[in-house]
């Protein structure tokens, strides 16, 4: 069963993603939208080792030409980040969610959208006045829990 983890402090430059324990690089976008009504979307867009851009379902597809790297953060740095881990085979019934290694129960929905900055290349990137790290947040996460009394709690993960 694939394990997909995102460690972040809410800033794109401090966001690292692991797939089955390996740190990924070259990611463009991650979109995860799951809820108890049966909606299960987990999409990843990345630039592969062959420079082509791929879009796959994280838990159902084989992620070809995935770029991995040695861990770029130290253990101490990782401790200061919040880690969201999803274990799933693509079915909601077999999906477990952990936040900082703590198993989460009573989840109504999980929404994660992380998008890298526009990847301008060459001279256009250099001449662009837009910051490579966008000032506007492009990292949004939301998790909704159902409490024992039937009320809902909406929380941000990072």
């Amino acid at each position, binding site marked *: 069963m694939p394990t997909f983890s995102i460690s972040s402090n809410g800033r794109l430059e401090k966001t690292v993603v692991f797939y089955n324990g390996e740190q990924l690089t070259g*990611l463009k976008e991650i979109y995860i939208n799951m809820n108890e009504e049966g909606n299960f979307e987990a999409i990843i867009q990345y630039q592969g080792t062959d420079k082509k851009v791929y879009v796959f379902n994280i838990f159902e597809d084989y992620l070809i030409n995935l770029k991995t790297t040695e861990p770029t953060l130290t253990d101490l740095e990782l401790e200061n980040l919040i880690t969201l881990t999803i274990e799933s085979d693509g079915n909601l019934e077999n999906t477990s969610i952990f936040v900082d290694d703590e198993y989460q129960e009573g989840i109504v929905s999980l929404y994660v959208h992380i998008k890298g900055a526009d990847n301008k290349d060459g001279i256009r990137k250099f001449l662009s006045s837009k910051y490579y790290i966008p000032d506007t947040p492009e990292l949004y996460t939301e998790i909704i829990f159902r409490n024992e009394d039937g009320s809902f709690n909406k929380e941000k993960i990072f």
Partner: protein
Amino acid sequence: MKTYNQLKSFFGIVIILFVIKLFLFPDFADARRGGGSFGGSRTFKPRPTQTAKPQTSNIPRQQRTSSFGGTRISKEQAKVKYGIPKKIEQTKRVDADGNQRTYNIYNYEGYANGLMTGYLMGHTSWLWMMPFHPAFYYSKPYYVENEDGSIDVYPPTFSIVKLIIGITIFSFTIWLLYRLITAKRKVGKLHNSSFI
């Protein structure tokens, strides 16, 4: 698609460089064409007067006037613009066409006077066309063609337009350095991230 973008970027750079060259060296080719003491082209040709006095040489008037660069002004304009000179030196030189000409060099002293001498001697440098050299901010010598065939030469003047171009170039250079430094910082910041 990527190759197309790279080609577009390449042609963009070529066009930018070409435009910069036109801005920086508008009279580059003309300066070389002068071949001697004077560079550039004339902005207008004088109307031949019926009262023309005997020439100092037997070369037709039309042929002689094509040899000079700088900017031609009238005697009245020169008087208003420059006033009374410190001294006037008369010298005879061979122009680019090989004709013997009489030059009345109006000396006002100062830096511009040195530049004028440089132009007259043909000792110009490509550095004069660079914005970090003071000569860049000056025009070429002005000259007045007299009826007797002699030529009054007036020193270059400070050009506000060239000053603006110089400031633009310096600003662009500073901006370029700033972008280089910040681009490196940005790459460093994103180095730890999984996202590109």
